[in-house]
């Protein structure tokens, strides 16, 4: 049942974080005053610019480093980043698009059964840690894949990590974990 579950599980990538550099100094005040959809944060020293077409929020620093978040795929992230660079070009800065790199990927997945977090953490110490006072999910860190999985008691998972980039890897993550779940699945999961 579990192998069929693996294929049936849909892992949806919900967030891709990427950074790139414009290789030129940016005047944040100009951007803030001449752009629509911008939020200027002078205390921190950055401008938040939101794009609509790929739904992307970008943090722009005056050094020319930009972080792009909110894209749902790697390509979308790249497109959004290029759009942003084009926008900055139009504002008059000599922008060069360089060092584009996807830094983090977040995916969401849902198990058809509920998970007993306490037993789960007991059996998987110290890889898994659960602190109900701090966060309702148990955190499971896979070292060799360099990914973090947050397990909620409803059975939903949040997988975070750069290694998620290739589709193959996301399945690897889930396959990695399924044996643990088999141990801890509650009966109720089977009823439905």
């Amino acid at each position, binding site marked *: 049942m579990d192998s069929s579950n693996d294929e049936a599980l849909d892992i949806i990538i919900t967030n891709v974080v990427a950074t790139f550099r414009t290789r030129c100094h940016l005047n944040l005040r100009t951007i803030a005053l001449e752009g629509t959809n911008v939020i200027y944060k002078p205390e921190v020293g950055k401008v938040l610019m939101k794009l609509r*077409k790929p739904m992307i929020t970008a943090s722009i620093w005056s050094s020319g480093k930009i972080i792009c978040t909110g894209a749902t795929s790697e390509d979308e992230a790249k497109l959004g980043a290029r759009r942003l660079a084009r926008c900055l070009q139009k504002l008059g800065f000599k922008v060069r698009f360089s060092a584009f790199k996807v830094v983090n990927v977040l995916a969401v997945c849902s198990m058809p059964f509920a998970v007993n977090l306490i037993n789960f953490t007991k059996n998987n110490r110290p890889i898994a840690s659960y602190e109900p006072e701090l966060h309702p*999910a148990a955190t499971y860190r896979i070292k060799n894949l360099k990914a973090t999985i947050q397990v909620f008691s409803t059975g939903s998972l949040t997988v975070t990590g750069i290694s998620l980039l290739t589709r193959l890897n996301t399945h690897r993550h889930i396959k990695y974990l399924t044996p643990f779940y088999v141990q801890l699945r509650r009966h109720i999961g089977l009823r439905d």
Partner: protein
Amino acid sequence: MEGMFCLGCDDLLLKHIHRKETNSPPDVCLFVSPAKQHINIVGNQLQMNQHHMDTALNFYKMALIKHLTRGRKACHVIAACIYMVCRTEGTPHMLLDLSDILQVNVYVLGRTFLVLARELCINAPAIDPCLYIPRFAQMLEFGDKTREVSMTALRLVQRMKRDWMHTGRRPSGLCGAALLVAARLHDFRRTVKEIINIVKVCESTLRKRLTEFEDTPTSQLTIEEFMKVDLDQECDPPCYTAGLKKKKAQQLEIEIKKKMDDVEGEIQEYQEEIDAELESSRPKLRGVYAAYAKGEDEDELRAVAKHFGKDLNELTVEALIKLEQKRPEDEEGNQEQEEDGDFPQRKAPSLAFLLGSMPSSATLGLSESISSCVTDEKENDGAADSGELDLSGINDSEIELYLLSDNEVKIKTALWMAENSTYLKEQKEKEAKIAKEKALGIYKERKPRGPNRKHAPIRANTADEAIEKMLEQKRISSKINYDVLKDLNVKPCASPARKAESPKKERPAAKLAGRNRRPSQTQLSLSTPLSTLGKRLQQYFLFVQIGSSNPLPLPVEAPASGVVVESGPVVYDDVPGDEEEDEEDETCVSALEMLGSNDYGCDGDYDDGF
């Protein structure tokens, strides 16, 4: 009183040094005694017994040895150690209590605690809400009946656990709900507000827990039944049930939609049948018009297209459909004007009718936007990679939308200036100050410190081994004379005095990072050989001299001797600059030169200082 607890370890260390405890046991003790004081203070506030505090101290020592205290505030680490003891011993202390005492964000403490637990491989057992009940019950002042109320509350909590309400939730919330119900059961009036103050959860959380409990079958039992009987049936966790409900609702929606579509389809069929019937019941068109009615489409469209001056291809499917829909009306229009003679005349009315019924801009405007959208999407599919900014897929006109026009810029500028006037004032003042200082020639450029780089711990038996290994790690000059390093010797009397002086020159803000800076100053004032070492090396030699006769507390276990007290000239002039990364190198070299040892030369790395 609370401010004291956030003292960095270095400040306490200073106090320690001033006391001149030269006979303290070796190694980590230097950091341990101030930590011990900390722990005692906090422990007393939490009313922990001595045994717990000793265990906490042991945890702290383990953390020290594993270098987990580096880069973290000492008070955070201490709090984490104390909390660890609370968890392992099962005392009813919450992380929230600790954060209240220390005035630190609970999540920050939590993070430190998690790191410590992971590194020290301490498996803290999961929090049981039952642990908190007696504590909260006492605070709620039930008098003689405290015990009974606690028992009831305990039963309630256990029931909640069996009903899976406790996974993923804060244990204090559950306790609050249980105590509220238990109090009511025993005729005590405890308001929600009182409970919230003690339990420290939000009112809505409490209410939610109560509703969830209400949903379980246990809530239907009477009081006596509840005390006696324990229902076997277990419940799903409430979020799971909620999730199931959602799923069901979604499925229902889908089904309804399907049914709607079916119904619509049926209606459509009926409509078509009716239309067909109507058409057939209408008087048949005469021959000319029959031909006119049939092979119509393109001619009509071409006429329309010609009128609007566009190509036939511009008219998209939508427009065609619209035209088709108009056709029944057109035919009626044609019938009305059957009397008219010529073909073109007949065409004209239909055109007029057409134009009259359809707003002129609509079809073409629509088709324009549709075509632009279609072409736009095609552009976006191609995403070629190149070094420079690749403009493929980027519609410039869209990007223009992201930029304001000149007028708008002016308005926005005015608004922004008005809103951020305080910030702008501060900036101006800052600039004025800097300009003044520059004019006076005492401008000190303060660059914000970058984060301390985390170095892997070096295991070495002797000081020189440690140095060698470190030098391998970091690309520092190989021209350092190790023999001289071996001869480092601290003169106990001299060094504390020097220490006393140098901190004065230290910048008033004793940041934790300052700990790394001070050795550089002190070393400069005290020794030549160490001054040749790079700033990075100096970070490893935390308190080499400050330990006076104490050997290093770091992995360098061998007596790390001391430093040749150098009655060198005015190194203190450079003290202000020492805070600066680049200028440290500069002072290193200048000290070298001052002392006339030219053997070491200048490393390429240190050219930035110039």
